[in-house]
């Protein structure tokens, strides 16, 4: 056990925890941020993704002790303080780019990470950015359209 401080969605949290505990369990059970989902625990499916700084990472693999004092953003932290949707969230709604929605949070996080480093992605770049995110309902075609829409809206 160690005293750990992490910053999530702009707020600091301090608690006693084993450093090796994956960030996902801290977010879901301690901070009650259930946007990131358990999908595989193996870094294969992407439903647990969160932003660490500007990079989308598998929170099921990241030990909480390794992200101390880094800026973590979950899907819950994307809306502005005044409640405005992030352009990617807005585009997902406009395209109705989900079915069951279990993978959607992770998809949006990957898309936000992409657009932060490349705000005019080509189709192939969008697809590659989502390579680590699985969807079983077959919403990918809409997800790709939504990200393209968000990129264009953001210009």
């Amino acid at each position, binding site marked *: 056990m160690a005293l750990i401080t992490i910053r999530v969605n702009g707020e600091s949290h301090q608690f006693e925890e084993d450093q090796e505990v994956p960030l996902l369990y801290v977010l879901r059970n301690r901070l009650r941020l259930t946007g990131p989902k358990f999908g595989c625990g193996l870094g294969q499916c992407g439903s647990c993704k969160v932003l660490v700084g500007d990079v989308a990472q598998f929170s099921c693999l990241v030990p909480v002790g390794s992200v101390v004092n880094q800026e973590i953003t979950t899907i819950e932290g994307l809306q502005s303080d005044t409640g405005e949707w992030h352009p990617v969230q807005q585009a997902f709604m406009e395209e109705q780019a989900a079915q069951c929605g279990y993978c959607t949070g992770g998809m949006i996080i990957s898309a936000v990470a992409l657009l932060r480093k490349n705000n005019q992605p080509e189709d192939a770049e969008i697809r590659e950015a989502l390579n680590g995110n699985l969807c079983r*309902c077959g919403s990918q075609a*809409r997800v790709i359209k939504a990200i393209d829409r968000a990129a264009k809206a953001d210009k």
Partner: protein
Amino acid sequence: MKAENSHIVKAGRRDFVRQLGTLVVGFPILSWNNPGEVIQDLKLPGSLSRHPSLDAWLEILEDNRIRVFTGKIELGQGISTVIRQVAAEELFADIEQVEVVVADTGRTPNEGYTAGSGSVKGSAMSVRYAAAFARKKLCELAAAKLGLSDDQLILQGGVVSHKSSGKQIGISEILNGQQLKTEIELPVDLVSQENYRYVGTDVRHKAMESIVAGKPWFVQDLFFDGMLHARVLRPTTFGQILPDLKPEDGKGFPLEVEVRRHGNLLAFVSEHEYQVVKAYNRVRSMISIPDSGTSHGDLRDRMAKFETENEGQLSPLENLDEQDLTWVEGSFYKPYVMHGAIGPACGVAHYDGTELTIWTHSQGVYPFRSAVSAMLDLDEENIRVIGVPGSGCFGHNSSDDAAADAAVLALLYPGKHIRVQWMREQEHAGEPYGSAMRMDVRAGLRGDGTVATWQAGIWTDSHSTRPNSDAGTLLTARHLPKPKPMSGRGYLRGGVRNAEPYYHVGMTEIQAHFFEGKQRVSSLRSLGAYANAFAIESVMDEMSMLAGMDPLDFRIKNLSDKRAIAVLEKLKATTDGMQLNDDEGLGFAFCRYKNNDAYCAVAARVKVDNHGQVEVEELWAVLDAGEVMNPDGLINQTEGGMIQAASWTLMEQVTFTSEMTTSRNWGTYPILRCPDVPMVHVDLIRPAGVPPLGGGEAATPPTPAAITNAVFRVTGKRIYDLPIGTVSLDG
């Protein structure tokens, strides 16, 4: 361990086309409260006839809002949105005034399973009739209460107004806080199509806001104070008895986890979820896994060895007086395929000493309750099952089993909420799969390009072992201290769904052979239709070439149903004149789902490289699902159905040895990833004045042959075995 054996059922033509509960709906003209054209001689829609009391379907709330109950669960298919649309429509309400309560044995009617593309026909149509009848009753009551004639009253937005005096009364006040308890009777006046405000439009799913905001929405997100987390280890190999292992037997720090052996299950329980996961993983890693290589490949041959005396070789049909037929033969194979929900199954249960409450994403809360009752010897009256959305699944997956795990543990920990989530490995290796199938087809073509005869031998395991009053339908029950194995074989005939071609065929003979493999099987999107349409549409493609005809024209020539012809003609217009490179091909397929529901034609444009790697670049579907409640919702389902079926067709098969299933995560059972997902296009044909046909699964059956037929056009290689994998370009 299950024995592999075979049963033969010979079925005549009629058996395959018989379908219960066909509904014919008229669309009367309605001007507000006055009867329009009244529906006569019709039965109430399926669920409504079993639950005819109005208050089973809707409640009027104090603020004149309307709460609607459906026994179907929201799986991402959008049924709750469709229910809101039809309720708002018939009650002349604003859609924001309508809320929907889904599957809950404590609140909603028993509508069986959410399955088979039946929710619009069953539940949405029931709500439509109930809401229309409620409108009529509310207006009658308002007239009596106000002492006015009901033809002077207008209902809008939960308020009844009198035309001339402007008097108003809310629908809640009309009822004095009571509910409408009368039985729904025909005739019922339904809003006519030209007056629709919501039905037939793209109403967005309310859930989308919660989903993109990351708000708790899924059963996986439920939280209760003092809730205990659990993982339940079960046999890893076929027929294994779990060794008595504890986490402290392994290396590492001690864990604050309680380990309970319960029959052939090992439960790990703690308030701290990750401790539970660690304990599970530690014990799991101590169980040795036999290494005996993959051996699934021989199943194709083994299936056909399950012969019976009735079967024999398929031979030309007796009394066939036609000569000079050109025969096309093929033996097709489809492996076990999984649901592969992205979120492993999860259930929460609580037992207070008398009442057991279970939160689950089961597809049938009432049948699941029966199974739990039989498993625990607990009266159904003392069990409440509450449906909560879960990760997308496409039939009967492990949702029920995870909830059953939680129920068993809840009885061991009274007063505590127990949350069980399966591990990825359990989900992959433990869910019930869609059965492997073999389809041997022999068809005779006349010189004029018409199909004279069709024979098919089909080998299949069961296609539904869904929970019911047999406790053994729950995996958990089979491993309890007093094991309760499954007694029956479930619904076998799913294997012959769409086995009979929808085309005009002179003579048809279908023989079904039911084998029982070691793999656990149950219903998966479209059941046997996916495999059967793959075989039929491959043979049709072959015959179109022998007939020297365009593949779409050939199909049209052999169809008489105008709506079937219309989807094919539309697809032809869409794809006509498409420019293709040398390494690209275009393939087509058609299927009328269940030979009775939606019509769907699919085209695939594929590219095959020099190494035989197949890329599906683009898919088009033309769909006629009759009346469409929410076009964008149906398009979304159709796009998803094609993408999912493309993944099955290109790369998916459950692998196993004689000891165990070896598909245990997304590495050993991969699915299509975003870089390889095709572009998809859906055209809806929406004829006026026709009832809704189940459409959510209609794109699944025609997709595989559209892809393999396209592969044939590029390579000259006919694909008989799925998945395609890499096409052998030799020879």
